């Protein structure tokens, strides 16, 4: 199986929108996509952590992805979704403006982000995918969630 994927060098992505930009996460890391629900604020956390939500009996932290990436956070609309991702056994919800589709992209069409973007948020990016006339920003979830970082423990 693995061999096959490697020779095909295609990855499946869940594509979503943050403002006017389009982003993508590997479908293997996405657990499910939920509509916006009640989120309980947690004091003493960084501002990009919206709070915690109830996912069928377990409590998950929810991140405002736009704030995390240094973008202007805007109103919650009917299209707003929470993408539940799982990284290293840790499930986290990410608030996105809208989920567009699931797509396949060839590895050769992905460009290293460092050559394109040089902002602070560059750490959070894995690359940029080119798809006909669309650009898809691929996210590095480990960095965004802050595993092995002290980001979450700001007092």
């Amino acid at each position, binding site marked *: 199986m693995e061999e096959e994927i490697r020779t095909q060098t295609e990855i499946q992505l869940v594509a979503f929108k943050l403002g006017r930009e389009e982003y993508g996460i590997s479908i293997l890391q996405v657990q499910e996509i939920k509509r916006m629900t009640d989120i*309980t604020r947690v*004091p003493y956390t960084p501002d990009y952590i919206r709070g915690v939500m109830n996912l069928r009996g*377990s409590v998950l932290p929810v991140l405002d992805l736009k704030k995390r990436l240094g973008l202007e956070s805007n109103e919650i609309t009917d299209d707003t979704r929470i993408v539940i991702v799982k990284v290293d056994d840790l499930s986290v919800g990410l608030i996105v403006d809208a989920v567009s589709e699931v797509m396949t992209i060839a590895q050769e069409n992905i460009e290293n982000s460092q050559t394109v973007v040089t902002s602070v948020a560059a750490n959070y990016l894995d690359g940029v995918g080119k798809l006909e006339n669309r650009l898809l920003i691929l996210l590095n979830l480990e960095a965004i969630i802050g595993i092995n970082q002290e980001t979450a423990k700001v007092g």
Partner: protein
Amino acid sequence: MDMNQYMGMFLEESREHLQSLNQSLLELESDPSALAVLDEIFRSAHTIKGMSATMGFTQIAELTHEMENVLDLLRKSVLKADPNIIDLLFKCVDTLEQLVESVANETELTIDVNPLVEKLRQVANNGGAAVTATPQSTHENTAAAQDQSPESCSQVELSDTEIQVVKAAHDQGLLAFEVKVELRENCVLKSARAYMVMSALEELGEVFKSIPAAEDLEQENFEFSFQVFLVTSAEEDKVQQTIMNISEIEAVTVIPCKVPVAEQKTDQPNPKKEVTPAGKPDKLVEHHVEKKIKSGQSVRVDIDKLDSLLNLVGELVINKTRLEQIGLTHKLTDLVETMEQMDRVTTDLQNVVMKVRMVPVGQVFNRFPRMVRDLSHELNKEINLIIQGEETELDRTVIDEIGDPLVHLLRNAIDHGVEHPEERQANGKDPVGEVRLIARHEGNNVIIMVTDDGKGINPEIIKAKCVEKGLITQAEADKMDANEAVRMVFYPGFSTSKVVTDVSGRGVGMDVVKTKIESLGGRVDVETKVNEGSIFKIRLPLTLAIIQALLVNICDEIYAIPLGSIDSTINITPGDIKTIQNQEVILLRGQIIPIVRLGKVLAIPEKANTEEPEELFVVIVHMGDHRAGIIVDTLIGQQEIVIKSLGKLLAGIKVIAGATILGNGQVALILDVGSLMQ
């Protein structure tokens, strides 16, 4: 054959037997003539041997085999259990433990068992030589001498313990029988028949001994006959009849057991001096009988399965609360009535699950007698360890965590608390120091205490050292009373200082102990008197998963305060709040109580143009002796909540102890009262 599926069982049982070996060896050390204990040791070693041989762990099998040889000579009183042999046996157990753990970790540990095997052989050979030269010289009583060939006649020697069982049975008007069972020669499944006989007899009464031992019966290590000793209220005929009903039985002889008064040993076992193991000799009988009853009726369950069972019950409680609310909001009388029924069932279910998860602290305490023995030898101190309340039950998750802190506390008590024998004598104390490990229930808490009658902690020295270390200023030290000073041993910076440890003798890793206990939702306290000793007292919640809590409202947010830390709730007016140096306080029944404005502490965004209401709700909480009042907007009510962790990402947030899911599916945070008051 795939052995992996038996691996878990092998490890678990080996560990259990090693634990019991440690315990029995301690008992043997304090009373070298205890034959019943020797039997116990022999059985454990034998079982480990059998299991490891089957699993292909030859080293373990070899070592236990040699141990058995020595143990057998001890049993036959050819050898005497002197300190050398006991030490050697302890070393064997240690090596076995290492071997078993290396099997568990799948590491290829290169442990050489040969030196030990060699030593065991030497001991066994010496013993053998001694028996040919002066066969009776090592014997102290004749009863043991006859024990050499127990299978030869029906008048089997019973050990002291077993005699006591028989006597106790007689006293209760029960009968004791020796049942000799002969199987047919063509019997195919001997062990199965033996099992049927055993279980049939266990239904009639209590089986307290069998020849060969139960393990051997299971493994078909017997010819066609075996003997079973039981205490029962049934008549001889009935016993006979019951067994004859089982097929493939050739003959059954039932002989009443007489109490062999003459055989009773007159010399009392030496009063225990050094380490007293957990079980006292007079309790042995009870233990014995109890074990037998339980063994037939328990099931080994994977702790993960229990965890998921508890989670499911938690879900059920949440959903039940939710249904109750629906019933109330929509005024559905039928639903409300049904929910009342269901409430009872869920509460019962929850209690049962909780009870299933409860294990006696004895499981943790068991390993301490051995540790105390080694430590006191190492430090040349004489310690009498007394364990009380080992049957006290605690949640499994707590049990797993409590071991290390207790090791710390015991080590401290022995290393630094108890003085050397000469020093004790000079101070007019018994040269043997006493360390107690006590567990008991107190309301919804379990208290575990480690006490010693050593030199205690001198608050002045602690203060001086803290000042020297720059942990506190001289002015702070002067203000401190003795209690506060002693509590400084838990101060994180304190433990890192070797100087303090040498002088004051306390504080090694005490902050670690404190952190651990607090992470379990407990508290640790210390009481001490110079020259009289110290008491370290741990208070732990019975269980961690479901608690009663008071839900409160601040602005639009709901928080849960654990009921265990709530004293009362009161109403005050804003005028009741006074200030002392800008700290808001109220006066309640003569006590000054500091006020915490939860809205501010939690940085809750305040609504515009809200005036201070005429009436304020205050929840009075306590943590130990300290009290505080928490101002909240409204009280929602008392409710059972299921504690959920906030997860790795949000772990360690100040003031928040966890989260819970309310009836409407909303997440509410649980306040950590302890950190709120700091």
